[in-house]
């Protein structure tokens, strides 16, 4: 089989902090978080690993970084707790796995891959998904592990706005995390 040139791209979300509000320290932290994820994926691709392993490694690195809205640092629902969604898909046979509305697995993308590889389904949601993930041995962390002061503050701001009826003038970052 002919070899192709490997390639990897990532995103950390389109809800960015406006340029004029981003101080140099925060800017550097975002770039470093992105580079950490790129290194995690590229190391695998460079070693000849499948693309599926590379995208999972890169997304896990972003889920572990509280700057980004996924895994640890996920935004909070109006009920004050995180509900996380994730998906993964392989292009050779269109195998796919996804989870919706879960809280517990450190890395939701890894949960999605377990759904793909061990459940016989594509998409699993909520309590049923969590029960399956426990059955297959996934570690569960408390909701407090995922919450950050920044997301709690963004939630309180939004709930206060809704209560007051003021117009939604949030930045992308506050809305989309």
């Amino acid at each position: 089989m002919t070899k192709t040139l490997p390639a990897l791209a990532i995103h950390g979300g389109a809800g960015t902090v406006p340029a004029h509000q981003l101080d140099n320290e925060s800017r550097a932290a975002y770039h470093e978080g992105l580079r950490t994820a790129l290194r995690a994926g590229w190391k695998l691709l460079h070693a000849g690993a499948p693309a599926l392993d590379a995208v999972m490694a890169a997304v896990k690195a972003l889920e572990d970084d509280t700057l980004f809205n996924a895994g640890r640092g996920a935004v909070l629902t109006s009920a004050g707790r995180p509900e996380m969604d994730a998906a993964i898909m392989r292009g050779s046979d269109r195998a796919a796995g996804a989870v919706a509305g879960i809280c517990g697995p450190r890395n939701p993308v890894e949960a999605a891959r377990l759904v793909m590889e061990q459940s016989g389904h594509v998409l699993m949601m909520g309590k049923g998904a969590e029960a399956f993930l426990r059955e297959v041995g996934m570690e569960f962390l408390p909701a407090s592990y995922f919450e950050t002061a920044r997301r709690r503050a963004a939630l309180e701001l939004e709930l206060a706005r809704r209560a007051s009826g003021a117009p939604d003038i949030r930045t992308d970052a506050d809305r989309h995390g």
Partner: protein
Amino acid sequence: TVGAVARDVNGGLAAATSTGGYTAKRPGRVGDAPVIGAGTFADDASCAVSCTGSGEVFIRYTASAELAARVRLGREKLDEAASRLIAELGARDGEGGMITVGAEGAPVLVFNCSGMYRGYTDEEGVLWTAIHRE
């Protein structure tokens, strides 16, 4: 929302997306990230895609499957198709972005809003990252 797309040395493609949704969302609300063909898609015959943004719009327009179809049916090259599609989504209140990679060539990263945390590696593994339009 975070995501990744990759092509390996055997030409295999893959995509992954993960999210907390948006701040103060209603419990039970699910956006495009876990919906295959909306926020996440991969098919070696066309491309791998991961999206971020107004999930309801990306679901209704099956954003990532739409991009793959335009490439697979040979109507447009990947970068042209992605740029056109993200602009079309923007015109329908679908604010956000997408990253994609095909069977050959460099990854494509497009967005229709003020910025997107993003990055890619070139064939030598040189890292490139950005936040706003830079």
